[in-house]
């Protein structure tokens, strides 16, 4: 009995080792391989749902139809998992990382915990998202046109933390001349909606999917008023109207109306970088540093075929919003807008967070 067991165990061990032995890298074929899609957040979060949405399509279009699995590595709000990916993963195309705004922002703000370097990664696919700001009806404001009425009013906004993407939105309020009281400690964006429904806050935002499904009913019931959508970046990197909300002005349009001039200046540049890292390039699928060109090419080709799959196109419109999934060189361009920020804008942003919201990037 004992010997049979040991023999079986030895065979299992041997078999597994054989399988895991590195294959000679000629023509890239992932047949029989397991690909780990690392998500540095808990299962069930936005990035996790996003990654799992892609799994069946990646399996279908990667050569050899490998098994693709999500591996959740939570900790440090995404920083820990991204660090591990950067320091440990092998450039064999079998490990990819799905990042999110909360991985991009600390990188942008040079958080001392960040050990990863976006410039060394290869972005394969970028999923943008948008969002809509809405308020409680008590203000008597009907649309972005009379946003001026909000000036000088007591505005309360719930945020998940001082380096979360909620601060991108707080900055947009400030650029539009509002002075919100930011209350920290929310446990997720849905918490923000609940706080507004309870009347504890009176201004909030939700990203596209959540807005369509959970805030639209409130709007219809007269319990919430949408003001503006943040917008998306066009090919030139300018903020334009969000295709998911063609009837709503973008932040750039509202800004122009409020101030009577096109948005410009260091604070606008800071906002744009912040916005790109948080929204326009919110989710990025990357390959690790040092990945050979043939593997990159295979992944790019798979991504191209995924985003042109008709079933994917229909389903992604429902699940991810009406946004163009950036692939190939576009993915790299968009990622660069998010991470290669003019030093003056970066300094302005840091200073804004430090002086206004007690952000401590170098706290020990």
């Amino acid at each position, binding site marked *: *009995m*004992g010997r049979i*067991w*040991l023999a079986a*165990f030895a065979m*299992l*061990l041997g078999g*597994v*080792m054989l399988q*895991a*032995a590195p294959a000679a890298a000629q023509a890239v074929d992932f047949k029989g391989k*397991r690909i*780990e899609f690392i998500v540095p957040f*808990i*299962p*069930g*979060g936005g990035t*996790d*749902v996003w990654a*799992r949405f892609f*799994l*069946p399509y990646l399996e279908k279009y990667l050569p050899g139809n490998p098994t693709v*699995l*999500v*591996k*959740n*590595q*939570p900790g*440090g709000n995404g920083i*820990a998992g991204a660090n*591990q990916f950067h320091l440990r993963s092998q450039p064999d195309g079998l490990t990819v990382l799905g990042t999110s705004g909360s991985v991009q922002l600390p990188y942008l703000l040079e958080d*001392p*915990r960040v050990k990863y370097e976006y410039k060394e990664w290869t972005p394969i696919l970028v999923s943008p998202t948008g969002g809509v700001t809405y308020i409680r009806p008590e203000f008597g404001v009907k649309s972005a046109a009379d946003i001026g009425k909000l000036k000088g009013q007591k505005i*309360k906004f719930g945020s998940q*933390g*001082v380096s979360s993407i909620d601060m991108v939105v707080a900055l947009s309020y400030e650029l539009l001349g509002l002075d919100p*009281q930011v*209350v*920290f*400690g929310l*446990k*997720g964006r*849905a*918490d923000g*909606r*609940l706080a507004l*429904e*309870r009347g*504890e*806050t009176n201004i909030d935002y939700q990203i596209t999917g959540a807005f369509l*499904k*959970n805030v639209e*009913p409130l709007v219809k019931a007269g319990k919430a008023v949408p003001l503006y959508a943040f917008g998306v970046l066009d090919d030139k990197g300018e903020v334009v109207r969000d295709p998911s909300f063609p009837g709503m002005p973008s932040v750039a349009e509202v800004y122009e109306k409020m101030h009577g001039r096109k948005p410009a200046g260091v604070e606008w540049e800071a906002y744009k970088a912040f916005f790109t890292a948080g929204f326009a390039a919110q989710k990025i699928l990357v390959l690790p540093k040092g990945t050979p060109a043939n593997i990159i090419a295979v992944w790019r080709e798979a991504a191209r075929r995924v985003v042109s799959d008709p079933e994917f196109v229909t389903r992604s419109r*429902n*699940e991810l919003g009406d946004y163009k999934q950036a692939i190939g060189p576009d993915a790299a361009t968009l990622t660069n807008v998010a991470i290669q920020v003019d030093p003056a804008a970066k300094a302005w942003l840091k200073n804004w967070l430090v002086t206004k919201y*007690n*952000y*401590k990037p170098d*706290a*020990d």
Partner: protein
Amino acid sequence: MLDVIATTFVNLVTSASLIYLLGGVLLGLVVGILPALGGTAGMALLIPFVFGLEPNAALAMMTGLLAVVATGDTVTSILMGIPGSAASQATILDGFPLAKRGEAARALSAAYVASAAGGVIGAMVLTAAILVARPIILAFGTGEMLLLVLLGISMVCVLSGSSLVKGLIACALGLLVGAVGAAPATSEYRMIMGNFYLADGVPLVAVALGVFALPEIIDLLRRDAAISSAMSIGRGWLQGAIDCWIHKGVVLRTSAIGCLIGALPGIGGSVVDWIAYGHTVQTARDKSQFGKGDIRGVIGVEASNNSVQGGALVPTLIFGIPGSGSTAIFLAGLILIGLQPGMAMVEQNLDVTYTIIWSLAIANILGAGFCFMISGQMAKLTLVRYVYLAPYMLAIVFYASFQSSGDWGDMVALIAMGLIGCYLRRFGYSRPAFLIGFVLQNNIETYLYQTMQFYTLGDLARRPLIWILFAVIVISLYFGLKHRPKNQTEGVSGELSATTLWPQAIFLLLALAAVVYCVYDVRKFYLLGSIFPLTVCAFLAPLLLYGLWRVLARDLSDPILFDSESEWRLKEEGYVASLGHYVLWILGFVGLTYLVGFLIGIALFFVLFLAVKSPAGWGGIALMTGAVVAFFMAISYFLVLDLPRGLLQNVYRLPWPIG
């Protein structure tokens, strides 16, 4: 509406959905029983299979799993004294003593019946609440939430044991450990000692396993016997069910508590069991047996931790806001099968809602039935000499802790919490009070801060719910203090003499040092970041000084003085080794892992430990070692989880699984 309820039931039991429901239940029981995994991990496992399933089948499977984790986790808690998941920590307090004295069958049976009853009550509440709960949940603002959390803290007075001062010290220490990491209001890193691992705070798994499981494993090893002192597991299967019937009032009330707390997003499932336990003790006439094996302690907790899922589904379905960790993934699953939870879904897809509710009810009954079937065999583990079980327990506990962030810090945190747990136990400080403080810290601080930002005192005074909850807390405190159970929750003290008090003094001095460190660490923080830990310190310091004064006064009749290790316990109760002896073994195990990684480390540890400590021959040792290695290989392969790496793996690239 009634016809929808009926047709969904028929559809569920006559279609393939029932098979999926069964699958969900079985997986739920497995992840419940294994301490490494809980409902959250189980749901995450299911998600890939959900994709592409017929929606009703997917709903049945996910709900089946969600429903029974709290039934399965009972097995480990009662038989091993190790929480099978966070929801059944309080089951240990009375369930494990019952198993130790040979009444495992009765305790398990009572737990399953109570679980099934609680789960069905939860499903009923969900049925009724789903269409009307929205205004109720919206009525609970942050102020009301704060009071509910404080109600949880008030349970400390019934869990303190013979000395209230020591209960409060334990709770305050828990609050202090909970305050480690980023401050909710300012994101400043508190007390992290320059280590970013602690920025997220100490993980709950490390605290729960460290404070409860490690001291228990060590204690059992030191006695070198089986868990059960009786030679059989008892024939109390029927008795357990009868116990539930006798105490049906407890079942009803704790189920209601479970539903309510589950339905409020943000408080979370890991507190429900403690509040239910505290309530059971408060409302019992004879409190003398709690902590020593009172069946009501098991029944109350188990009814509440199953009913909590019915409650937690209320906000999940009508707001799309999860009420617990596992419902968070449940929510993601719904989105994956094309459903968007929210009031719209509840009203327009009533069949979906009732499929979930029926699955919940049926799964709870099935889960309890399965548990009855397997428990007879499982319970025999309590008759096995513990040296054979201990290495498995240690391996699982460390592996479970490592899963919370996949960082070596998890292992260190577990050891640190284990040491705190051992000494809390030794000196008679209530470990439940410590855990309550730890679990509720973040909620108290966040809600307090948010309430201050959102409301003025005048606003709060105009909210009737605030007054009602305030009254409930006052009543709870009054009864809690008036009829405080004075049981020793942490065993009996050894003989004390004036010369054996110094270890207690050192313990108090170390706690005082922690207070000083905390004050020093937060001294330059913004007020909002430092006010909470400073308040806790201001409360804790006088208590510690009082304790120190009592110890130095050497009044041996004072219940504060307590030391279960005051003399060498070799002679009594079959103790054969000292506390330090097995602490060293565990440190040795972690050290091995640090050098050569988890899989090789565990194999070496098994061989060494069993060769030295057990009478097993080399064949047996090889078999047991092979089994554990195969188990961890399988679990890490199929669940795509990492094993802790060692120095060896950092220097050389090794193939899976040892790399």
